[in-house]
């Protein structure tokens, strides 16, 4: 098994603690200079809080206690009960020194308390972690390389690619030679593309690299609290950029701690309310298109929104008129805690705001879904950065921009003049704003320059580009389409605040910078600025109304996938039911037919292939179209899907909202 040794855990903690203690020292010195700065006080508190939690996970109870004591002192300051004085800073600095000394000592020796017994190390029956890949080649074939070298390698490859493109342009401009006709140039291009792919691949790591730490935390915390928790992990081979994963690992640890500390009930309480005494805590990772989703879910008591509301009110936040989902969202506010009691792990209002901040720093977002008595699921959704994205390049207000192609539904030219122009007085309008008609539905349109707030961007002269997010479609007028191109997207500097309309930037062959826009952010912004009040959901057309009567059964054992597909299809106007495996699906189809079945392959009890065969063999279900959506990407699997009678096959890594809706519409003969 791939369990990390206690020594390795302590080593990692020591590395983390070194950085955190250095930062803590800097913060304390700044605090002495600027005693009234509440942000600084909050930062000091969070550093101590994180140190405390991480030390507990590493089995360093003494370090954790010391950090807790220091945290208590800072809590007094935060609550306004104690002023920041030189003596207080002395105390905190001395405490930080003690922490540093204790950590150094423990790294060398390791406390007896941290030594797990053989029983602890043995995997339990509920251990669902995948085994590590076979290592027939042996560890001797692996070398450790400092991450900075890999990053530098990727940067140099990018530079070399830019230089090669410049050479191509020079061949064309100076010598009138089309580089595409030069065999050597083409060979160099191919080699560089391969090199670029490998350089980027070298920086991708599986999610499993951080799950050992989580598993240990689950074990230790649940034991300490007398709770019986079954840890389940799926999709741990999902790969993502090392830097992004490293940034997120703290956040996932926070969520796991929170779930056990105040999401999951005691065995007695669970039995009282009719639940199994053993709780389930799941970590599920998957790649969907250009994003990775990491979901942490539990079957505990759910978030008490009334408590969250009270906490928010205490902080002066007006909660009147907020929906259930908006109240849940308040739990990400600094100072709002979802815990009823302060414990040594959580419940001080620290955690979820930190989670949100770190996820947003990775240009991602975090969502929470919770139902009282049923459980809570947090979803961290981040782009796979340092990735190459196919982009549509457009010009707006005289500037070029890139739009990730997987969000582009279509681009269409407008009539040169007359009623179809969206920016003219006699343009098509619906609900008080200009629209364009897309496949029979009106879609609101706004000049891209206006959405971006660019001077002179309020009008546009060229085509419209229709973009889609998870829940909306919106058209944007641009001056012209420049073309399509693969763009190596780089995250913007962390010094910059998060810009919701910007996904990143890429370096062009001529060395200039191309800003890559974020379609969901654009759509949200356009909906806000286009008109107040109503959202920009397109009005249902006659075809869409027709589609609303069609029913789809989604079959997948993964909750996140099920809910994502349900959401996408419901927004597209379908009635959706869900089943958790093939047997469940057959039972539901026996009770009530569906017009189409969307199914995963790998599921317990009955897989997607067997389900498809069963549907084809059933007299009254045989004509039901079946669409397979699976992470299995091999030709053999796709062929097998067709052989057993599936009508379509979508690979999950290439799956997005548009491709699913398009495939479903096609199979049902619905005009999208």
């Amino acid at each position, binding site marked *: 098994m791939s369990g990390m040794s206690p020594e390795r855990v302590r080593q990692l903690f020591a590395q983390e603690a070194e950085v955190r203690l250095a930062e803590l020292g*800097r913060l304390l010195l700044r605090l002495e200079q600027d005693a009234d700065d509440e942000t600084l006080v909050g930062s000091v508190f969070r550093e101590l809080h994180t140190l405390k939690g991480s030390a507990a996970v590493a089995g360093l109870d003494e370090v954790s206690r010391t950090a807790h004591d220091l945290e208590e002192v800072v809590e007094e300051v935060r609550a306004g009960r104690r002023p920041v004085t030189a003596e207080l800073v002395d105390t905190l600095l001395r405490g930080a020194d003690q922490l540093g000394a204790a950590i150094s000592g423990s790294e060398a020796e390791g406390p007896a308390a941290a030594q797990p017994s053989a029983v602890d190390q043995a995997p339990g029956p509920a251990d669902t972690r995948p085994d590590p890949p076979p290592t027939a080649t042996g560890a001797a074939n692996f070398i450790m390389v400092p991450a900075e070298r890999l990053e530098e390698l990727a940067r140099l490859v990018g*530079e070399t690619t830019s230089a090669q493109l410049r050479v191509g342009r020079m061949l064309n401009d100076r010598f009138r030679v089309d580089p595409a006709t030069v065999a050597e140039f083409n060979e160099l291009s191919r080699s560089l593309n391969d090199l670029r792919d490998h350089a980027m691949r070298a920086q991708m790591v599986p999610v499993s690299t951080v799950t050992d730490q989580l598993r240990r935390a689950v074990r230790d915390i649940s034991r300490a609290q007398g709770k019986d928790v079954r840890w389940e992990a799926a999709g741990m081979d999902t790969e993502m950029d090392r830097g992004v994963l490293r940034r997120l690992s703290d956040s996932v640890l926070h969520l796991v701690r929170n779930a056990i500390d105040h999401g999951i009930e005691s065995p007695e309480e669970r039995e009282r309310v009719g639940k199994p005494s053993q709780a389930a805590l799941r970590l599920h990772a998957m790649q969907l298109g250009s994003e990775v989703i990491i979901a942490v879910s539990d079957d505990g008591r759910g978030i008490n929104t009334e408590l969250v509301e009270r906490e928010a009110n205490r902080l002066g936040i007006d909660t009147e008129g907020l929906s259930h989902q908006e109240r849940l969202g308040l739990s990400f506010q600094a100072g709002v805690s979802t815990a009823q009691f302060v414990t040594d792990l959580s419940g001080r209002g620290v955690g979820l705001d930190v989670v949100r901040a770190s996820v947003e720093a990775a240009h991602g977002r975090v969502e929470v879904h919770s139902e009282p008595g049923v459980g809570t699921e947090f979803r961290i959704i981040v782009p796979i950065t340092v990735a190459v994205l196919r982009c549509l390049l457009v010009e707006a207000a005289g*500037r070029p921009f890139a739009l990730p192609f997987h969000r582009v539904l279509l681009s269409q030219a407008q009539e040169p003049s007359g009623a179809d122009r969206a920016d003219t007085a006699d343009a098509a309008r619906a609900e008080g704003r200009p629209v364009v008609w897309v496949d029979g539905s009106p879609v609101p349109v706004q000049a891209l320059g206006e959405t*971006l707030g660019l001077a002179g961007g309020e009008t546009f002269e060229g085509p419209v580009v229709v973009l889609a997010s998870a829940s909306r479609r919106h058209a944007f007028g641009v001056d012209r389409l420049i073309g399509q191109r693969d763009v190596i997207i780089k995250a913007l*500097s*962390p010094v*910059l*605040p998060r810009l919701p309309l910007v996904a990143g930037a890429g370096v062009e062959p001529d060395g200039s910078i191309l*800003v890559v826009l974020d379609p969901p952010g654009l759509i949200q912004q356009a909906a806000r600025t286009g008109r107040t009040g109503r959202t920009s959901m397109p009005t249902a057309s006659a075809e869409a109304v027709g589609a609303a009567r069609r029913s789809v059964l989604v079959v997948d054992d993964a909750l996140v996938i099920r809910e994502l597909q349900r959401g996408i299809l419901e927004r597209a106007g379908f009635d959706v039911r869900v089943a958790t495996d093939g047997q469940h699906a057959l039972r539901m189809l026996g009770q009530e037919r569906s017009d189409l079945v969307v199914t995963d392959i790998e599921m317990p009890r009955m897989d997607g292939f067997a389900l498809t065969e069963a549907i084809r063999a059933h007299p009254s279900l045989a004509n039901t179209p079946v669409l397979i959506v699976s992470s299995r990407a091999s030709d053999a699997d796709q062929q097998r899907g067709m052989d057993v009678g599936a009508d379509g096959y979508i690979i999950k890594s290439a799956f997005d909202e548009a491709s699913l809706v398009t495939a479903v519409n096609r199979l049902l003969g619905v005009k999208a």
Partner: protein
Amino acid sequence: MTDVHALLLPVGTDLHALPVDWAREVVAGPTLTPLATAPQVVIGLFNLRGQIVPLFDTAALLGLGRVETVAFAVVVNSAHGLAALATTGVPQRRMLDTPAGPSDLPGTTGLYQVGRQAAALLDPAALLSPERVRDPAARLDLASNGDG
């Protein structure tokens, strides 16, 4: 008192001093790409041998108006990654000795005499923190309220 080895940054009629250890390099007349929706303190982005570096308006970060023309970008190794400060003239190295007095500007640590001028010594950690970049005005108000 220890001397401070600094890079003097001319910004309009003002002079600021950056501890030289923070400076990575100076780029003359960088080609800038405006960054839509960014705060006003962000002048744009430029390509530094494949790395995308944000260029900040030094005057705006300090609450002293705006830089009109960017002549040089001083690339700084900040805790959050590379960032650059705009200047309107050639940056020059100088040893600064005794402070001439405290500085009123947030993000600075004191005033030093340079010829007939006084240069404010920048604290890059504070000046280029994400909080300051996000909302420099709010921080300035806070500082002035505190003074008052």
